[in-house]
């Protein structure tokens, strides 16, 4: 298949200046450091990594909440770096985001109806309030809420229901792409599957593409076509969902997978758990060489000195010296 990617990210770097005080030494957090990947139309790209590895920052850079210091983001063949005015507004209509915290992501002073209507008002999608109201009811139905929820306030809903409201708000502008920033990690396990199913159904019906962020591989495995694994701002492995999950290459991916509890005790015994030792290094002073070298069980002399470059191995990408020849 030689389809063109809908989203194409190249060598993206997003840094934060966290220098404290006027005269102290400059301190930079390299939250996203040289990340490249493509997302195909109607596909889901799963992004995993431990807390603080830069997943949210990457997602927010894509939706233009943060400006990258380097690299490019192309959406439908167009660089989004310098969008202004009407073009920026059009981009904001096509590219939506679902947020991590269902409690913070809805304005507590607005009713559900007002929340879902706002994007339609901003983008002038309908002329009359009656039309908008009709659409809100339809969206509520799509995400599995009831029409009479329209006059209620977010505080009256559970986490799962709030996340559904957030999804309805994102859908209100008929986007083509949604960045889902850990949309289920704040929810009860029993409700996670419901929300995942909802997102999958919506994708099928509306032909959407997702960037789906999670900190746990098992969460993204089902929904994703491709998976990228991030560590300390870097993409360390990337490939087809099946491949990454069943035959991980990078030592970090292997460690992540071994942390997933397995319900069958025999299989669990056979697959020894690799414990990640030590803390994640601070992104302010990343280790020299491979970012994973401080915790990697297979690290060699070279790993501490030289940064491994991403290479292709059997149709996927991995950044690790073990696979270089």
């Amino acid at each position, binding site marked *: 298949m030689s389809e063109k990617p809908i989203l194409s990210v190249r060598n993206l770097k997003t840094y934060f200046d966290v220098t404290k005080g006027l005269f102290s030494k400059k301190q930079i957090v390299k939250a996203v450091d040289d990340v490249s990947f493509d997302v195909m139309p109607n596909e889901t790209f799963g992004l995993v990594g431990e807390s603080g590895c830069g997943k949210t920052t990457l997602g*927010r850079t894509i*939706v*233009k*909440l943060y400006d990258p210091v380097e690299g490019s983001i192309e959406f439908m063949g167009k660089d989004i770096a310098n969008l202004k005015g009407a073009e*920026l*507004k059009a981009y*904001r*209509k096509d*590219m*939506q*985001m679902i*947020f*991590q*915290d269902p409690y*913070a*992501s*809805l*304005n*507590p*002073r607005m*009713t559900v109806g007002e929340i879902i209507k*706002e*994007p339609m008002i*901003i*983008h002038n999608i309908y002329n009359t309030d009656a039309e908008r109201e009709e659409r809100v009811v339809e969206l509520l139905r799509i995400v*599995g809420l*009831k029409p009479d929820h329209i*006059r*209620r*306030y977010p*505080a*009256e*809903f*559970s986490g*799962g*229901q709030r996340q559904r409201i*957030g999804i309805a*708000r994102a859908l209100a*502008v008929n986007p083509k792409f949604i960045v889902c920033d850990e949309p289920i990690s704040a929810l009860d396990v*029993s*409700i996670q599957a419901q929300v995942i199913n909802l997102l999958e159904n919506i994708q099928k019906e509306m032909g959407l593409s997702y960037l789906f962020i999670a900190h746990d591989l098992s969460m993204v495995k089902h929904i994703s076509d491709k998976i990228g694994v991030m560590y300390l701002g870097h993409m360390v492995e990337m490939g087809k969902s099946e491949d990454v999950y069943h035959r991980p290459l990078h030592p970090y991916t292997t460690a992540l997978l071994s942390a997933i509890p397995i319900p069958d005790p025999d299989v669990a015994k056979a697959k020894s758990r690799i414990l990640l030792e030590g803390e994640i290094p601070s992104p302010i002073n990343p280790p020299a060489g491979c970012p994973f070298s401080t915790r990697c069980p297979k690290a060699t002399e070279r790993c501490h000195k030289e940064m491994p470059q991403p290479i292709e191995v059997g149709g996927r990408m991995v950044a690790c010296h073990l696979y270089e020849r």
Partner: protein
Amino acid sequence: MSEAEVKMVLPENAFEKLPEDEKNNEFIAMKSRSYFQDVWFQYKKNKLAMVSLVFIIIMILMAIFMPMFSRYSYEAQDLANPNALPSAAHWFGTDKFGRDIFIRIMYGARISLSVGFAAAAINLVIGIVWGGMCGYIGGRFDMILMRIVDIIYSVPTLLYVILIMLIFGSNMFSVLLAICISSWVGLARQVRAQVMSQKEQEYALAAKVLGASDMRILFRHLVKNSIGPIIVNTTLMVPSAIFTEAFLSFVGIGISIPMASWGTMANEAKNMLFSAPLQMVWPVSAICLTMLALNFIGDGLNQALDPKKRSR
């Protein structure tokens, strides 16, 4: 228990599927009540605040309507009947020119209340716009505008007042100007802090991703969410403006006679303090009661608006 009993076979049709709408295992957590309904519900629990609210409402109604229907005016003198004690004709008695004190107190209420509410309204607008923009835009813009606020704050209010009175004379306008020129800075600082802490919240980011303009994000989302502290601060500004006006008029640089302000009335009564002490009691009680009531209202709102301060 025998084997047979345990192996009881359930008939096929003993179970049926739940209707779709009953499957949802999530449920509505709380009864529906809008923010202001909730605040009112909490406010009503506070007896002192309720009594104060009723007092202020009656005061406002009387200030508006009493002078319309009274046979006395604030300036009409009745030299045949000076320094009269309270009677059926003159409820609060008369002053040294034979003017009806009750109606003068009502006129004073008009001045005091309008100065108080006007000052609060002006402060509200300036404070929200200034503080909101500083908090939202941040960076150098914020630095410069907040330094201006610091400078305004550091100059003593009395200095402004005297300068303004010298330039514009003693009238209602200069009193308002004098009160407003520096009192908005507290509100501006508060709004700025609120906006700064709210703008990183995900709902504000969501609005931006949805394409909302900066104005929309700032006013429809951030300021609206800081409404609690803003209301409290503004409410407490009313009594402080009333006091400033009364004080300025009392020392003779505020509202000028024969206009009846509580401050000017207290000033005139001070010469009669020993011969007719009641004349001092009326304006002073009016000032005290009004300020007390407004402060109680502010406290009540503070409690009702801030869930952490609620007593249950």
